[in-house]
C-alpha cells in the first residue's frame, strides 16, 4: 500500500504519495464525487522518490478526498477544518429608528469583520410580533448586496408587495402591518469570511406606523448654524428618519470659497439628524449644505421622486434631478 499524506510541494499544499512505480496513475477525488465524474484538476509532480498531487484549486477545509492509484483507493484523507473562534459580531442593524413606515423598504446589517456570501437568505429573517417567520417579506437574494469590504449587507423588503398596483401587492399585501411590531433577526450561523459563525445572533425590534409617501424635502429640515470661529458642529434635523447609508454620502457642506468643508460627519439617533464638526473653525460667511437628490427615506422616497407615484397626484410629479442647497451662516 502506498504511503499517502498531506504535505507541501514548493509553496503549495499537496498530497504526497510514496513508493509508487513510475507507470502508476494517480488521481484525487472529493469523496462526494462518483467514479464516473472527472477527477480533481491538478498535476502530479515527482519529488525525490515520492510523487505529489498538486491541485489546480486549493483543497477545501473539511472536505474528504479519495486518493486513487491505478484505479484503486490508496487512501482517504480529510482536510482538517481549523477550529476558528467566533469573533465576528453584528455591530448594528440600521435603521435605528424605533418606528418604520408600513411601506418600509430596506435595512442594513453591519458586521465587525468581512463576511462570506451565500448565507443571507437563510440567516436574516423577519419575525412577527408573535415570533413567527414572515414568509415572503424579504426580496429573495439571488444577488446579495454587500458593500465593498463585505461588512455591510443590504436587505430589501419585497418591493412587489409594497408598490401599489402590482400583483404582489394586490394578492399578498404589504409585508408589514401598521400597529404591529416585528423583528429583524440575524442568526448566529451567518458565517464570516473565515468560515466562523458569529459570536452571537442579533435582532432589532420595530414598530410599524403609517405609510410614508412624501418626497424627502430638505426645505422642511431645521438647520442649526454653529458659532463662527468655533469648531462646533452644524446640525441638520430631518422631519423623518432617512436612509443611513445614503446619509453617509449625500450630504456635504461647501464653504464660502465653494470648497468642501472637511470634518467628521455623524448621524444622530434614529437617523433623524446629521451633524458635521469641521476640522478648521467656521468662517463668518455664507456656507451651503449640499443635498444629493438621490437621498431616500426609509420607504425609498427620494428628494427627486416618491417611491411609487400616483399619476393622478400632480404634487408627486418628479422634481428635476439636481442638487438642493440649504444656506447657513455661522453666527
Amino acid at each position, binding site marked *: 500500500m502506498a504511503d499517502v499524506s498531506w504535505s507541501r510541494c514548493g509553496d503549495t499544499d499537496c498530497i504526497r504519495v510514496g513508493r509508487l512505480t513510475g507507470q502508476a496513475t494517480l488521481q484525487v477525488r472529493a469523496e462526494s464525487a462518483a467514479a464516473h465524474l472527472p477527477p480533481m484538476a491538478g498535476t502530479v509532480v515527482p519529488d525525490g522518490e515520492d510523487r505529489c498531487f498538486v491541485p489546480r484549486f486549493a483543497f*477545501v477545509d473539511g472536505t474528504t478526498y479519495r486518493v486513487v492509484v491505478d484505479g484503486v483507493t490508496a487512501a482517504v484523507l480529510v482536510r482538517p477544518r481549523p477550529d476558528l473562534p467566533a469573533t465576528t459580531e453584528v455591530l448594528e442593524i440600521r435603521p435605528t429608528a424605533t418606528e418604520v413606515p408600513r411601506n418600509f423598504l430596506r435595512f442594513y446589517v453591519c458586521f465587525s469583520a468581512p463576511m462570506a456570501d451565500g448565507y443571507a437568505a437563510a440567516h436574516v429573517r423577519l419575525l412577527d410580533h408573535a415570533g413567527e417567520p414572515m414568509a415572503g417579506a424579504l426580496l429573495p437574494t439571488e444577488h446579495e448586496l454587500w458593500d465593498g469590504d463585505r461588512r455591510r449587507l443590504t436587505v430589501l423588503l419585497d418591493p412587489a408587495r409594497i408598490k401599489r398596483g402590482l400583483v404582489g401587492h394586490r*394578492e399578498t399585501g404589504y409585508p408589514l402591518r401598521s400597529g404591529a411590531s416585528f423583528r429583524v433577526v440575524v442568526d448566529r450561523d451567518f458565517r464570516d469570511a473565515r468560515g466562523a459563525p458569529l459570536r452571537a445572533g442579533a435582532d432589532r425590534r420595530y414598530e410599524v406606523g403609517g405609510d410614508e409617501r412624501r418626497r424627502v424635502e430638505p426645505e422642511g429640515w431645521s438647520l442649526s448654524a454653529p458659532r463662527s470661529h468655533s469648531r462646533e458642529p452644524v446640525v441638520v434635523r430631518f422631519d423623518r428618519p432617512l436612509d443611513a447609508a445614503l446619509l453617509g454620502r449625500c450630504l456635504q457642506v461647501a464653504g464660502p470659497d465653494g470648497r468642501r468643508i472637511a470634518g467628521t460627519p455623524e448621524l444622530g439617533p434614529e437617523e433623524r439628524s446629521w451633524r458635521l464638526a469641521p476640522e478648521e473653525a467656521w468662517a463668518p460667511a455664507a456656507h451651503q449644505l449640499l443635498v444629493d437628490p438621490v437621498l431616500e427615506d426609509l420607504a425609498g422616497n427620494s428628494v427627486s*421622486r416618491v417611491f*411609487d407615484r400616483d399619476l393622478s397626484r400632480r404634487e408627486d410629479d418628479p422634481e428635476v434631478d439636481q442638487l438642493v442647497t440649504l444656506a447657513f451662516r455661522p453666527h
Partner: protein
Amino acid sequence: MSEYGLVIGRAAIGSAGPIAFGPAGILFLADNTAAKVFAVDVADPGPASGSEPFDLENVDAHVASFLGCDPGDVVIRDLAVHPGSHNVYLSVQRGHGDAARAVLVRIDRLDASVTDVPLVDVPMAQVTIADAPAEDDERLDITLPQGDEGEEFTFGERTIRILRRPIRTATITDMAYVDGALLVAGLSNEEFSSKLRRIPFPFGGEVVDNNLEIFHVSHGKWETAAPIRTFVPYGGGRSILASYTCTPVVHFELSDLTPGTKVVGRTVAELGAMNMPLDMVSFEEGGEEHLLVANSTHGLIKIACRDIDAQPALTEPREPIGVPRETEDLKGITRLANLNGSHVLALQSANGGTHLRSLKTASL
C-alpha cells in the same frame, strides 16, 4: 483581437458574476467584487457545431468534482454558449468567504469534458463600472473638484463646480452585447433606482458610461423606477424586454435610451405574486421570434414578440400574459442561453441536482 482593444493580461476576477458573449467569441465577465467587466478571448478550441441538443445531468457534480470540492461548495452564477462551437461556459464561484474563487468553466459539447478557461496571459480588456472613490473620502458622491471638471452650480451670487458621480452599481445582475455596446443592468446596495448602462465596446480609454433611468407604469395609475433584474434584446437589438425586481415585464425601444432622458417602459406582463424573474432568452421558431422568461415560481413563460408589439400597455390587473408553461419539466430553470438554432439550453435545478437541459424550440 487587437481590433477589439484586447491585450495580453490577467483577468483578475474576484467574484463570479454574469457572463455574455460578444463579437468574435469574446466573453464578457462581470466581477461584482471589483465592480468591473472583463472582455476575454476564450480561444474556444471546438469545431463549428450543428443543431444537436446537449444535456448533462448533475452538471454541478461534474464541476465540483473537477474543482475538487463538494457540490455544496459550487455556485453556478451564469451560463453562456459559444456562438460557434456551442461549447458551454459557466461562471462558477468555488468556496465561500476568503477561500472563494471565481472560475470560468468550459464544458465541451461533444464529450461533456470539463476544463477551466485560462484567465491569465490571455487577450483581455476591462472596464470599471463603479467610479473610483475620491482619494480623501470614499463615501462621498458629490465632490467639489479643484479643476474644471463637473457641472457649474450657482447658489445666491456664488458659482461653484460640482462633480456628481453616477450611481454605484454594487451588483451586476445581467449583461448583453448589442451592436457595438455592452448593456449592463445592476442592483445598487443603496438607492432604489433603475439604471441601465451602455458601455461601448471596444472599451474606450475613458469609460463612456451612460446612466439610463427607466420607469415602468402599472395599470396606468402608478409609476415607479426599479432595478432591472434581467433583460433580453430582441428584434435585431431594436427592442429590449426587461424584468424588474418587482416582477413586471417591461418593453422599451433601444433607440429610446438616450442619455439624460426619462424612459418609460410599457408593462406587458406581470409574473405574479411571490415570484422573481431569473433570466430571459429570445429565439426564432417558424420565422417568428419568441421570448422565454425563467422565474422562481412558475414554469417557463413564453411570449411571442409580435404579441408584445401588438399589446397595449397593461392597464388592468392581469396575470401573466403569453403562454405560461406550467409543466413540471420546465420548472426550476434558473438560467437560459441560445444553444443553436433549434435548442435553448437551460440550467435547471431538480431532484437535488443542477442539470443542463436542451429545450427544443419547436416544442416550446
